[in-house]
């Protein structure tokens, strides 16, 4: 079965500031957050298919709505304990916007995406799970 990206629709009324919009267009994608960070992202193409390269578009913000830095993106299958066979590269845009290219999930099952972000001195890893079928 195909993995549909439109799983979560978040309504963050107070986060919808112009500096750090969480909507990456099309109104779909995911939002992950911690005490310090809020990250919105969506895949391109919009469906992630087993074995097919895809990119992730990010908007990385601090909780106080200022842009933050995306350091690294990676993924593993925790059950099988293996990484991706591909190493993504990150291209930075303006205002906390980033694009990670060259991701491939080569098996069905659970993939754990890790997103390393930084604002000032503090860096942090946020994660998100995908179940591919």
């Amino acid at each position, binding site marked *: *079965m195909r993995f549909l990206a439109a799983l979560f629709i978040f309504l963050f009324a107070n986060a919808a500031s112009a500096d750090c919009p969480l909507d990456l267009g099309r109104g779909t994608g995911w939002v992950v957050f911690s005490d310090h960070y809020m990250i919105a992202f969506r895949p391109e193409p919009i469906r992630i298919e087993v074995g097919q390269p895809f990119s992730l578009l990010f908007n990385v913000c601090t909780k106080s709505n200022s842009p933050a830095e995306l350091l690294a993106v990676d993924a593993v*299958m925790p059950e099988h*304990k293996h990484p991706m*066979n591909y190493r993504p590269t990150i291209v930075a845009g303006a205002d906390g916007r980033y694009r990670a290219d060259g991701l*491939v999930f080569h098996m069905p099952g659970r993939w754990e995406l890790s997103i390393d972000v930084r604002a000032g001195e503090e860096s942090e890893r946020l994660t998100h799970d995908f179940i591919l*079928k």
Partner: protein
Amino acid sequence: MLLAALMSPAAAQELVDWSIDEVRAIERHGPWPPPLVRDPSNRVSGMPAAIALGEHLFNDPRLSANGRMSCATCHQAGRNWSDGRAKGFGTVDLDRRTPSLWNVGYAHWFGWDGAGDSLWAQTIRPILDRREMAGSAAQVGRLLRDDKDLACGYERAFGSKAGVDDEHLLVDAVKALAAFQATLVSPRTRFDAFRDALVAGDRAATARYPLSEQRGLKLFIGTGNCDTCHFGPRFTNGEFGDVGIAFFVRPGEVDSGRLGGLAKLANSPFNLLGRYNDDASGASAARTRHVQRLHANFGEFRVPSLRQVGRAAAYMHDGSLATLEEVVRHYSEVSLDRLHSDGTPLVRPLGLTPQQRTDLVAFLRSLDADPPPRLAPPSLCP
């Protein structure tokens, strides 16, 4: 065979039940055939004139140094586009089995070690390899310029006369060869009829798929865990794995598989990052650009497609298993010591009963059908 036939009527009453998740997993192995894909790195991909030229070149022994070996020597239409041998044989014995060319146009890594990142680049290897056709760019260039039919076929396919740059002509020749190979799509099978009926909810049609094959399929997508690697319509995720086949070629000499393949890929002037990629967007080179070398790549080989698998003369990259029964026994008894995995092992001894092994083999054989007879290619420039 007779015994099995006598025993089956009793079983014919049972039904195999499929959960929603199982139906979805089965659905992912189709539909078949998929639409033909155009390779953006090959500007003549999918073009009839290039396909025709490619088929002629495929059968032409003048691409080889001794004038006696063509692609069709080792990839024979009547032998499942392989050679009927456990390991390839060129001017000397080769260390790996000749893979079938069915559905090769849908792949993205080529060769058992994935040393090729496009069908056309992969096609250069046998032409130049001294153990195989031992040819050269100069020889290919001369042939395309001097042979009347091929020169005419070249002009029709590429829209200009064959030039003087031999390397360029070698690349054009393999692009035509690739266009031809991409047309080799295996026929629909009993499994495909079952899969379509199951997805459509047509119970009468699903009942025509024998119970043993249905039970084998249930194992394949269930406890066997086979479809984590043998995924999708071609029954391969197109990547690499280690299923516990020995990687010693001779005492003291190993086939490092994917690890060596990645080194060859990086060193090839014909990879998709090089100047012969016709895709200006660069998108077709995404895998080549991002692939990373991992410790685990040592001893990994490409996950083979399982379509038409019952027709192979031997199995695995080294042809070390002679029959599908042996392959299934291997997965049933494989040693965990040989497979170093810290997580839940993808391949582990399944401990199958004789009935389960029979079912799994029956399922694998249902991925097979007789291809329609092939006609001789029309002449290039009548």
